[in-house]
């Protein structure tokens, strides 16, 4: 057998090494240039990366940085749930909660069965006191989470607030079915019946509640108000007196309704006495509020003390004026007020002393 000779090698170019080096250099320059160009471009020119960066920034609580990228991403893809959610959450967390609404709405539109989205929107409207909206989304949320008793409880109150008394009552009765002895729910049921114009129904609920829990003053107060509204002021009076005797937290409100009731039964003198006490409580509260606003204003404190004395609130007036003189023993307006008070009270010696210290 004979062997063929091997093919000849191609003729070697004398420029070959230089071309290879040049190609390599061109490639390197191109790579470096492209890399520089790419990395120097704005994020918007590489949309997916910008979106991801923005989402990451949002998750890391850098929402101010993230927001432009998120908005750009949303402009490109309006149904991008992840971006909508990030915008909603970012605004809610920051100081721009008011701007969250459109994103929350969009989030819920895109994911109508997403409980978290719905809950966020419900809460947003509740805090913004857009009660109709809050209630509407709350109802949808309850459909998604029917076992959420707390939500049902909130919806009872919200339905009441937006005037859907029938729905409020339905929630209330559903809750009562599981907690029949709950005093707050029973009191609420009475309030709902009252709002629906059913004073008799409200009274029935309250009467039973008072029988079961005689010392439950919110029920006593509600019952007294219903007695007043149904023209039985005389029956409201003992209940209100009970509250005044036992509940320090409800002195003003019970006193107010008692004064109204006493006037309506013709006991004007007693009504005036009770009214004066209600007014005293209010005047003292107002005085304290005024002094909170201007704690260093001794003229104000002295004047308010004087007003309290003039209104017959002797102990309170003396207390305020005493506090003024403790800070400024020679404060003339306070001495003048006390001088006038003691003159009225028939104590000329003290009156003269304060008059002297007042400088006249």
């Amino acid at each position, binding site marked *: 057998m004979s062997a063929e000779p091997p093919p000849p090698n191609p003729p070697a170019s004398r420029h070959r090494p230089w071309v290879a080096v040049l190609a390599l250099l061109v490639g390197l320059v191109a790579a470096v240039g492209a890399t520089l160009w790419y990395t120097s471009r704005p994020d918007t020119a590489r949309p997916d990366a910008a979106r991801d960066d923005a989402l990451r920034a949002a998750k890391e609580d850098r929402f101010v940085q993230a927001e432009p990228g998120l908005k750009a991403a949303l402009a490109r893809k309006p149904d991008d749930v992840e971006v909508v959610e990030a915008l909603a959450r970012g605004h809610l967390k920051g100081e721009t909660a008011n701007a969250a609404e459109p994103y929350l709405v*969009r989030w819920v539109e895109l994911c109508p069965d997403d409980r978290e989205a719905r809950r966020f929107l419900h809460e947003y409207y509740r805090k913004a006191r857009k009660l109709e909206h809050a209630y509407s989304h709350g109802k949808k949320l309850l459909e998604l989470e029917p076992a959420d008793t707390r939500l049902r409880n909130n919806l009872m109150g919200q339905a009441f607030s937006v005037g859907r008394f029938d729905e409020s009552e339905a929630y209330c009765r559903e809750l009562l079915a599981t907690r029949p002895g709950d005093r707050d729910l029973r009191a609420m049921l009475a309030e709902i019946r009252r709002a629906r114009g059913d004073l008799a129904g409200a009274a029935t609920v309250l009467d039973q509640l008072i029988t079961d829990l005689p010392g439950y003053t919110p029920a006593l107060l509600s019952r007294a108000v219903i007695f007043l509204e149904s023209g039985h002021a005389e029956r409201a009076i003992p209940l209100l007196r009970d509250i005044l005797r036992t509940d320090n937290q409800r002195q003003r409100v019970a006193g107010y309704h008692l004064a*109204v009731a006493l006037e309506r039964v013709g006991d004007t003198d007693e009504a005036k006495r009770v009214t004066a006490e209600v007014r005293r409580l209010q005047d003292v509260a107002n005085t304290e509020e005024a002094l909170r606003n201007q704690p260093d204003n001794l003229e104000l404190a002295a004047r308010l003390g004087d007003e309290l004395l003039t209104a017959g609130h002797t102990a309170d007036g003396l207390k305020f004026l005493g506090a003024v003189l403790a800070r400024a023993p020679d404060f003339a307006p306070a001495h003048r007020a006390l001088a006038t008070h003691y003159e009225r009270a028939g104590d000329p010696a003290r009156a003269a002393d304060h008059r002297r210290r007042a400088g006249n």
Partner: protein
Amino acid sequence: MPNALRRVVVIACAVCAAALVGACGGPPPAPAPDPPAPAPAELKPTAGYPWFEDATAAAKIDFTHFDSVTDRHTILETMGGGLAWIDYDADGWPDLFCVQSGPLRPAGHKGPLPTHKLYRNNRDGTFTDVTARVGLDKSGYGMGAAVGDYDNDGFDDLAVTYFGGLSIFHNVADPAAPGGRRFADVTAAAKVSNPHWGTSCAWGDLHGTGRLDLYVCNYVVVDLDNYKSCENVAKKEYYICPPTVFPRRAHALFRNNGDGTFTDVTAESGVGAAVPGGGLAVTVVDLDGDGKQDVYAVNDLGQAYVFKNLGGGKFTDVGARSGAGLDMNGRFMAGMGIAVGDFDGSGRPSLVVSNYQDEPTMVFRNTGGFAFQEWSHPSGIGPATRKTLGFGIEQFDADLDGHLDVAAANGHVYRNAQAIYGFPQGQQAQLFLGDGACRFREVSDKAGSYFREKLIGRGLAVADYNNDGRVDLAFGHNSGPTKLLKNATETANTWVRLELVGNGKTSNRNAVGARIEVEAAGRKLVRFVSGGGSYLSASDRRLVIGLGTAPALERLTVVWPDGTREAFRGAAPGRGWRLAQGTGIVTACP
């Protein structure tokens, strides 16, 4: 795909491309446009809801309330000014008067002092500023206004309150313009003096004389030379002091003597016997249906006055026993404004009182005999108004369904509310639709763009200024422009507009104190011509009564201020009618 890997691939592609074309670069892609946030609900009229268009510019109303701001945050700076609809030329087209405030120290003010403005209605949707022509180019720290024909000459006069005063402007013939009218300041000649901080005021026949008397709310005593600012130490911010840090001033009542003069009867009437209150709003209306006009006046952090008219010029305050003197918890209200009307179909005037932030606007249902039922929460207004600080408030029938609705102007008193509370001073106005049973639902979101603007609302007055049967709104703003909102509600509901004219003898010509009963399609609607109302403002006393789908009125009865009852016939729906006492007939008006 992971981000890093994606980047490598992109770079590799770029290298290949660069190698192929021998170039790097090229035009970068255009940046993505800044996208609009998803729109909430598109703002356009919604079937079944009222709709208001901002007609301020088109109407050529260019009033701006003077900004008297100082670094002391004085209480004056936040009060705003009133608005009054007054048909000063008696042409049947309401004109608009805007009360101006001014610098706290006028002597140091550079340039001309700002003045009130009167805009004459051109009957084509536009207005012309006629302030100087009619003599109302007056400066001062103006507050409120009331409109009333106190001399029963057929032309409405003006009372204007100031920080430190009260002016009576008498509507007189203009000798320079035959047939024209102008105003003469007759305060001194009328013997009216109220050198206090007057706020809202109201005309009403409180003495049963057939003439309008004047009730003036006085607020607190402020000494600008020795003003002590209030400071929130924690926030290091001054803020507007509450009224409780100032002495209160008793309200004032001026009896109309019938000869162009008035007598201050504050003391002898019993008005001065009430604990000085810090008054901000007043309405004159017959609360107990006994034929005598009573007074309901609210005080800022004081008990509201319910002055029962005992007759003979005597009044007694029954606020404590009425149930409308305090809020439901026995606390003082920060009463700013009052709306009065038959909201529940009882035929009695009930009351709505605007209130402070985090407090509900109060609703008091009139159950008769000076007894009121607190109804804020069940009405729906209470819960919806805790988020706002209310000032002007008025009732009207926005959609002509025969049920009274309520509009409210809102805005916080602190201009640095953002720094102190974290929310802006500007707040949205609100609109509530009534159902005739004293239940309301807020429809502000659907009522037009104005109701989404956050402004510092103060005065509010209503009038059908273009006589199209739909009641329009004018809102005043503290240190801001007056806004005119044209009611553009699309509805097939019918209406009548009634202008009552008393006989000028036993009943005042303005018929303040009249009661109107309309029966249509089996419904009976009761409306009142009351004095005062809202905050610092005066609404058109003409009444637009929505009739729903009723094609005609079955019965129209007026109980005049003097107690006479008169039936009128022939008032067909869809236009305005003038009802003159004693004639029994209606005459068409614009």
